[in-house]
């Protein structure tokens, strides 16, 4: 099978890998590059577990062709923290019990990140809309919505608490 060279920035780091024709970004991130934070939940674009940002736009890695991210910047939940300093979303999810089994969490965080990058002061309804493509089966959505609103407030407050 023909291999294609793809280069992209993954969480700021230059990355190069050969991919198969038709290979999806989720598979390349997980098995090719070793970033295991995006998760397989359905492989059909139906659950949001593989949500990542491509050039700042929220994308579902399982239905994104790996070749299409050539030259792009890809961000995953693994790159949210700044070294040991957690992103306000991560802190809010921890403190607000917004993760139970944790499987949907990386995707949920990226959907929330995309929202807050575009809209620092979202209304509750806008948070609901922003994560409407992400299924959660055990935490329940309310603590997640609360955590995203808390993180937004934290980010608007500027410096870390």
């Amino acid at each position, binding site marked *: 099978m023909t291999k294609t060279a793809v280069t992209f920035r993954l969480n700021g780091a230059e990355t190069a890998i050969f991919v198969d024709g038709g290979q999806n970004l989720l598979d390349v991130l997980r*098995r090719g590059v*070793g970033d*295991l*934070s*995006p*998760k*397989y*939940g*359905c*492989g*059909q674009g*139906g*659950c949001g*577990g593989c949500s990542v940002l491509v050039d700042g736009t929220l994308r579902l890695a399982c239905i994104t062709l790996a070749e299409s991210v050539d030259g792009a910047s890809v961000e*995953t*939940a*693994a790159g*949210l*923290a700044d070294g040991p300093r*957690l992103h306000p*979303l*991560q802190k809010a*999810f*921890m*403190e*607000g*019990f917004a*993760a*139970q*089994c*944790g*499987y*949907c*969490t*990386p995707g949920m*965080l990226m959907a929330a990140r995309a929202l807050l990058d575009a809209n620092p002061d979202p209304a509750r309804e806008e948070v*609901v809309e922003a*994560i*409407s493509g992400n*299924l*959660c*089966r*055990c935490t*329940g*959505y*309310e603590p997640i919505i609360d955590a995203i609103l808390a993180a937004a407030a934290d980010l608007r407050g500027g410096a870390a608490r």
Partner: protein
Amino acid sequence: MTTFEMRKEYFADERPEDLKEIGRPTIRQDILGHVTGRSRFYDDHLFDGLLHMRCVRSPHHHARVRAIDASAAEAMPGVRRIVRSGDVPKNLNTLLSLLGFGRDDEPLITPETVGYRGEPVLAVIAETEAAARAAVRAVRVDWDVLPHVLDVEAALAPDAPIVNSEYPNNSFDYHDRYDHQKLRFGDVDRAFQGAERIVEGRYRMSPIEQAPMETCGAIAVPESNDRFTCHTSTQALFFSLATTAKLLDLPSAKLHFIGGTVGGGFGGKVDSVVEPMSVLGAQLTGRPVKFMWDREEEMQVGAPRGAEMWDIRDGLDRDGRIIARRFTGYFDAGAYTRLSSYAVVKAVGHLPGPYTIPNVAANVYCVFTNRTPATAMRGFGITGVDFAIECQMDRAAEAAGLDPVAFRILNAYRDGDMKAHRRLAKNTALIECCQVAAEKAGWPLDGTALSQSSLSGGGGARASVPETATDGEGRIGERRRRALPAEPLAGSGPRGRLPEGTIRGSDVAAAPPQRMDMGPGSGPDLESFVVPPLPAAPSPATGPVPHQPPIAPSTAASSPAAPATPTAPATPATPAAGDSMLAARLRRSRFLAGTRRR
């Protein structure tokens, strides 16, 4: 020194004695991994040379394999091994055999006759997932399609197709010789004769898929010490290890299972199917092998909470006390036993619910049908019959002309009462729960209901074990279904005259059917099933219904009348939701039409 005292002595500094955590927020110890994406689920382990295993599955509910031609698949690039039923060292098991309960009835890879759609008959191991999928498609199976049965009553009919050759009567054998689990307490027949009112109802619950975000799977790795490491999504690590050891005829010391970080389970990850498959693959190839269900397999062959059907007949006295209650229950096990036999035992121990009723009888069947085998899910064995009981309570209250909450308080068990399984009730709190729920809902209760307490009024005559009615042979009832009295089951068709005051319940469905008999092309995915998404405001057309039972829990599942709430998405529809539907006079067809999102 008792264990408890030791704990107090040695761990005194580690845990305060006045442990009060409920109602306080706490930080999960594993949450740092979750929010940084570093928690390692079974599939978050990378191995050089990982192979992928996939199954050839039956497209039929019930069929016999005449022949399998895997020659084309075997010759395809990337294919490393075809795995046949004969490759499984001990290819017959039942999950509860580890507890000595039930007979081995299910192969890991089926050699001849399949009993449900999706049952595996062959497996392929290949270098990539794509190669494994292509090879599976290239396998030709010559099927002899057999008549199937998908309904518990039809499965118990004398001419029904035999689903499971180990249980040719299509029912699990209890205590080696009975086709049902029985409960007898007092004499229901005599009590019915003296009853002021008889209230009957039939209640059904469809299968419910646990739908975990992470599908079931395992990766097995041959180690240099002649052992196999198995990374698995299981909820039951040692149970899965022992099941694998049994099927593969391996000493358990050869197996090292690693798990515990589970991407949602809800009972659907205890059946120990993926682990023996992956270890078998690693044995046969000498390489790491992943056996992972995709979403379609999770929804179609992943064992759901099984369907249930309950017939309940109550006898009430003039004051509205329930003096007799009889159950006939049917658990749909699907094609194999798995854990359904145990669910029935658990259910019977739960009867007649949290009420003190002096005469109780139950016959409960674990029935085999050609549906996906059922297994555990959140409180299984209890949830279905509780749905039935609480719907029945509303119906009986209506028949007696009593407030439904007051009716529950009137019949609630109290400390010191004898329960039907002959244990004294203690720490009862149904009365107080009803009172608090009514208060919070703004539901008015009369002074009598408000003045009751679980701590008083129980015991005494209510603590006695009534004499159990026996027949002329000193038996407490029939051994098998064909010896049952000729009276038809409630709701099952034409029947004789019912006593004055009889109320007949119509069918009440707790949840829409979620699998089986889907139209061609409607593959089971997350979109075509009701997996509760974010809460949405009820639309005007399906908004509040006029009669909302006062003790409606806040966790009603998705339905036209009760919008999904996000707090307990894996919990099935509640009695309140079911009865709201009835009260709103929603037609069953409309109810079912609401089960698919498209």
